[in-house]
């Protein structure tokens, strides 16, 4: 466990937590844990900044009784602080929260998050299937992850509200990553907001200097929103001094071009300078096209007509078109799905290429086109 630098918002958070705990109705907290109710702490916690701070040895700020689930989180936190918590205890806590009444679980998580206390788990941020975390670096991040899942499964709005409050101040890239996901889960129309927040992340020089796992995984927002306006910024990240960010941006660009092929191709045709220094990689983005779709075909023809694109790049594009390629991974927001490989795409490719050969549409590419056709024949 490491001590984290106190965030300026910490004192505000601490104050809010104290108020929340002090205001907590003692009679209600004594009710059986099964009785569903939303805590009065929800609003203050949601509006409070959420710095990721570990308070070594700090005790709750008000001597109040709390619901059973909150006490379980509290007990685990104290063990984690002392370095005595085990992985199985973390799993058990998650299980207890997942199987509890969702409203009570959310209430308990928000109450703990409202205290702004945190402790490191010793694990690295890692995603599992469906955007859920496999490992969380801190208890707060784990709780935000669980909060998101419980709220999504029970269709309750608290996770997104809290996530938006986290995204109001720079806590940690990991907290932001999970918060971006929680907002997206709750509100699929939040693309513009998510893009703004991803931009904020990328503009944070401290976060960008040493990109953490949560920071890199957040690039999935660009793929989720399917906005071609991300092509330029991602392409510029390919020149970032940080190799990890370069690589993550390369994956994001490839996945964005797979998720929104027409939009990305159109953008690249309109911005010929983008990725011009990496022509063979640019060819890969166009290779996501589905020539059975007229608009894709037209856009590809525009690309093949371009004088600024080398013959080698065009040849690579044709080869890639016949052999689609994809990254496979567990992502924050999007899923890795095999690109459509039904007979329609193959047939569209064969018919289009045959048509180009017959009409001598791209004479310089004839050998490459014939090669594609030969490979498509059974």
């Amino acid at each position, binding site marked *: 466990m490491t001590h984290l630098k106190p965030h300026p918002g910490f004192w505000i958070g601490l104050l809010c937590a104290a108020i929340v705990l002090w205001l907590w109705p003692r009679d209600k907290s004594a009710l059986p844990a099964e009785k569903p109710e939303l805590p009065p702490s929800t609003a203050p916690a949601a509006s409070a900044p959420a710095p990721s701070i570990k308070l070594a040895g700090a005790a709750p700020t008000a001597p109040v009784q709390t619901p059973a689930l909150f006490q379980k989180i509290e007990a685990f936190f104290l063990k984690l602080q002392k370095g005595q918590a085990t992985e199985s205890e973390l799993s058990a806590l998650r299980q207890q929260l997942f199987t509890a009444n969702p409203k009570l679980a959310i209430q308990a998580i928000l109450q703990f998050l409202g205290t702004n206390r945190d402790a490191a788990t010793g694990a690295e941020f*890692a*995603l599992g299937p469906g955007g859920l975390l496999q490992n969380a670096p801190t208890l707060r991040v784990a709780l935000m992850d669980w909060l998101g899942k419980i709220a999504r499964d029970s269709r309750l709005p608290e996770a997104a509200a809290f996530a938006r409050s986290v995204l109001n101040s720079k806590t940690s890239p990991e907290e932001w990553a999970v918060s971006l996901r929680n907002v997206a889960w709750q509100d699929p129309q939040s693309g513009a907001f998510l893009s703004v927040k991803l931009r904020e992340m990328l503009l944070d020089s401290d976060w960008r200097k040493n990109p953490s*796992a949560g920071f*890199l*995984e957040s*690039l*999935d927002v660009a793929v989720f929103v399917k906005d071609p306006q991300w092509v330029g910024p991602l392409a510029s990240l390919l020149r970032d001094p940080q*190799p*990890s960010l*370069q*690589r*993550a941006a*390369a*994956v*994001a660009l*490839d996945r964005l071009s797979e998720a929104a092929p027409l939009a990305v191709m159109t953008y690249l045709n309109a911005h010929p300078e983008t990725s011009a220094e*990496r022509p*063979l*990689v640019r*060819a*890969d983005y166009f*290779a996501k096209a589905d020539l059975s779709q007229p608009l894709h075909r037209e856009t590809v023809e525009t690309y093949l007509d371009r004088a600024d694109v080398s013959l*080698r790049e065009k040849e*690579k594009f044709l*080869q*890639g078109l*016949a*052999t*689609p*390629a*994809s*990254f*496979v*991974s*567990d*992502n924050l927001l999007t899923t*890795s799905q*095999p690109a459509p*490989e039904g007979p329609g795409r193959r047939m569209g490719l064969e018919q289009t290429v045959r048509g180009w050969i017959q009409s001598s549409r791209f004479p310089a590419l004839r050998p490459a086109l014939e090669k594609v056709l030969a*490979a498509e024949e*059974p």
Partner: protein
Amino acid sequence: MRHLLSAALLALPTWLGAAESPQSVGPDLTRTFPYSMVGQLLFQSGNGLYGGSGTVIRPSSALTAGHNLYDFNNGWSTGVVFRRALSGNTALSRQPARRIYVLAGYRESLGRFGAEDARSFANDLGGIVFAGPAAGGAAVDTSADTTLLTGATANLALGYGAEFHPGDELLAVSPKTAFQPVTGAFFLNRSLSFEAGMSGGPVLARNSRGQWRVSGVVVAGSNEPVSGGIRAVDAQAVQFIRQYLR
């Protein structure tokens, strides 16, 4: 530690020390199961033609190293062709890839930690899918039991080395000791060496029932100190194979 791509016609003399070094298995064994499921992978990356290795692990798919299929500077490899059980000029089958997958995301993207970092090798796995069965429906199954690598079970690494051999014959090497986990799914063995061109080849082991299983994929090698690195087949790899390779 470096990747084991073999540029065409590359041949560099070196002293490999006392570790086990890859030797030709000969044409007969090359065409005997499970050796016959291994093949040479030819592909173009940028302006270079390269050779690697792969194994038929599903009827119409082969498992290989991710760096055979993708490179940060040149993007996806093209012209990927699998020549199964190649021996001299002939192969039992020759099939172009119809679909390529690399098991890596934003965080694990190949080369995130630099081309020669163990953490990159830990995420160095890919697969290719063919139009039809590569070996008449036969395949070597995989095993996510990493004790097959770290325990007393004998291991056999195979591939088409082209560094000290011509690249047209199947090579095999067995370590004297068990593999050691380094980070994530990257395992190392200092009792053997690999040759450039073996990248993507299988590390085979017999399970408790005596069946051959692919337990790892050759991804890295070093001549000084002599060592061979593999990407173990773990639960994530098995899931990847089940979901994307057929």
